[in-house]
């Protein structure tokens, strides 16, 4: 059961890393134009402004 001492903190850290990454995506307005972002992947790099 000693392995838990390592595993539980790891799972908590990974979970909070995911949460922080998600909060960053919300803050940087990445959900404001979902259909636009879906379409932008089709633009070639030289098309980009």
């Amino acid at each position: 059961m000693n392995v838990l001492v390592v595993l539980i903190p790891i799972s908590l850290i990974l979970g909070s890393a995911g949460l922080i990454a998600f909060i960053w995506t919300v803050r940087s307005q990445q959900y404001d134009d979902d259909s636009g972002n879906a379409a932008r992947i089709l633009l070639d790099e030289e098309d980009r402004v």
Partner: protein
Amino acid sequence: MMSGCPACAAAPLAQETAQGPALQFSVPGVTCAACIGKIERGLSHLNGVATVRVNLSMKRLSVAGQVDPEAIQTAVAAMGYEIYPLDVARLEATRDAQGRALLLRMAVAGFAMMNVMLLSVAIWSGADGATRDMFHMISAMIALPTVAYAAQPFFTSAMTALRAGRLNMDVPISLAILLASGMSLFESLSGGEHAYFDAALSLTFFLLIGRYLDHRTRTTARSAARELAALEVQTATRINGAHSETVPAADLRMGDIVLVPTGARVPVDGVLLSTAALMDRSILTGESAAISLDAGATLQAGEVNLTAPLRLRSLCDGTDTSLRRMAALVETAENARNSYTALADRAAQIYAPAVHGLALVAFAGWWFATGDLRFAINVATAVLIITCPCALGLAVPAVSTAAVSRLFSLGYLVRHATALERLAEVSHVMCDKTGTLTRPFVNLPDDLSATDRQIAKALAQSSNHPLSRAIVTALADTPAAELTEVREVPGNGVMGYYGDVIVRLGRGSWIGAATPGLCLSIGDAPPCPLEVPEVVRPGVESAIAALDLPCEIVTGDAALPAERLAACLSVPFISGASPQDKLDRLQELSDAGERVLMIGDGLNDTAVLAAAHASIAPSTALEASRNAADVVVLKDSFEDLPLVLHIARATRRLSQQNFAIAALYNAIAIPIALAGIATPLMAALAMSVSSLTVLLNAQRMRWVK
């Protein structure tokens, strides 16, 4: 993902730091990646443009930097896209703070749920003793702060309802979340076997999904409606002695002298000071013919000046025009409409008391039977969690979000929360004619020579009369001829010189032709009569034919054009109807038990649009009429009208199916919970499965035909 696309990540930040507020434009024509690329690439070369960003979801373009808005409009129009400037002040608060807060709460609940679920799986797999207690305590450490943060929207809503002495869906939700957390904390501290932390969190998570979907549906409609309002520029030109100034229409005072440019709407009720004027009143009265007026005639706000710029003396303040009063009337009617109880609220009215009663019975029953207070509370908690409306909270928002976004992509903007439910109940359709079903159109004879066509276009271009505009549309591909001394004779037509030949376009009687209708005359040649049928808006014929409901036309226009259209669409009609007549007709139908759908655009329709069971208006309608309508058609064609009704009915059907799924799941789970044999694993499984089922069922909306 974070570094894969530096441009995406950098763009929003760059926009915020750019100089000055970004200019906003509405570009309804953007549909794909190619459009985005073309516009963004094209504009980035313009002088002074710092950043340019197309938002495809909102079909909006924002440009930051020191740049002239006119230059941007010209550039985008040259690329072949319609573009309209938006009034940034009216769009204020487009940043959706509430939606973001909901999204964050949802994310926190989701991540916490995943972590607690990991720990719970270990417990369900047989962890016991000290390990189980430790896992319970770690779960508590994650769950309690999460619940305190993420479930706040439910707590506040429940508190508001309780203060007002009512029960809403959030009361049992809050109670279940609080009881589950509190009871589980007590069980964990005292080394108990069952803790419901994962249930409390997944409840919060699933319900926040429903809340977020609901919120998004509403804000899309609200921001699009705000955009329509921002398109209408509400300024007026006031004349002060020798100079003129531009002021907001609301700042006009009684007695002000106002200049109305050609093609503009009259901003305030007033008396005509210029000697003559030709006005388009179709949006106010439904009459398709233009009206000529002499000095001293009364003008109403909302009319369009078709000829030379005119002056008027205002008869009231800019805030008190007949148009505004009509808008205020609409608001009153709206409030009446708000008393319509949505399906979800009706369900909650039955559901909330039933759940509370059931939990109370379970608690009292087990306490009385066993005398074990702790076990009785446990059973009551399990009942509350299991019956808790996870699926019920998602059932309606998931379906209506799918329906509203499907309709938005078809060009229909749903403005009102209960609009779809009311549309599904419609049993009779009432249509306005002018501006709604028809548009003016001019039929040019096939044998008209190319030069004549060019002259006709040049003459038509210099006038704002609806028929002139129709000629310009009909001759879109023809270049205009070079004319000199073009001038408009109010009420009669346009004249000018082609070389040294006099050319005229206008009333037959003015030109000297045998027919009274619209004629084109070139020099001494016999005048050429032009047919002016009112053409039906694209898609109307097929839409009316496909409607499975009785339909009728009620118009303020004269009998002849109404009869012609009615015959063409083979529907009954009432002509020459005043706004009051329209309302009376609506009342008559409602008294006969019909639920009426009104489709109209003019000010004369506004009262009916507001009073009808459901209403649809085209985006060309006046702001007051658009505000009164439940659904605004953003595109030109009415072709998809039957589909709107089908989608509305499918919304009702799928919502009811979702309620049935939730009820079925409750019918199985409640007896188990009441029997006191429910475990946290069973609660978690049943909750997830039922929520996913209703979400998936809602997606069937995509295939509604």
